[in-house]
């Protein structure tokens, strides 16, 4: 786990990212919010840059349904 950046004297502002752009950040956060508690956010890299975002939302399966399917 890296130390917090404010404790790292080498980190200067503005931070220079290699791939990420400032405008990408709200989009990634919106995707994370949209999928809710469970799911995946896929950040698709095209030509070395974030090209698109894919969202996969997961729904938990009720335990009763799981038990039923295993008993068959």
């Amino acid at each position, binding site marked *: 786990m890296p130390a*917090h950046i*404010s404790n790292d004297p080498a980190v200067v502002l503005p931070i220079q990212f290699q791939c990420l752009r*400032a405008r990408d950040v709200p989009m990634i*956060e919106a995707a994370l919010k949209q999928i809710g508690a469970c799911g995946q956010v896929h950040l698709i890299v095209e030509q070395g840059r974030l090209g698109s975002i894919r969202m996969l939302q997961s729904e938990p399966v009720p335990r009763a349904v799981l038990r039923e399917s295993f008993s068959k």
Partner: protein
Amino acid sequence: MDQSKRVLLISRDLMIQRALAEALTLRGCQTFEATERIESLRLMYETHPDLIFLEIDEPDDDWEFFARIRAITDTPAILAVNRNEPARARWSKRNTAILIKPISVARVIDKARAWGIVRRNAKSRVDPTWSTRRLRVVDLIRIDRALSQVGECGEVRLIVEHGQVRFLEKIATLPISNVTLSSAKHLAHQVGDSSLRSE
């Protein structure tokens, strides 16, 4: 009553805002972030900050904006300015600190500490939980590192469980133009694709 000091961060750079907000929050401050001037003025009237951080990005407009702030309040201010900024000498006064860009978070904290805004040290290690509500600068650095590691084409997958990012998967993709015919045939043989094998 909440005794934490209030800091207003005004910058068009999201990363500067976030990095300073995180560092100051870890040290017990309450932060408010603004990008636009109207929003900044609204927050200034509403929150009565103990410290203002302003990044001078567009010199003509931003110095004029700072002059407006100074007409309203004498609150201590930290200004981040470009090197060789001629207007900066005018504002080098007791309650205005001027830092030359690029700035470090540590320098801003030192200045804030000198004015008694920051009183305690931050936790030495970052919180390991990675919330999906707001990405921290450390999380963004991790994502950026992963994106650059996948190369020209690929994916970085953020896997969320119970409202937290639990895993980060990196998948590099090889463009089809880079696959030679012999390696494609070998692959086709392995997966049983007859269309390529018959060529």
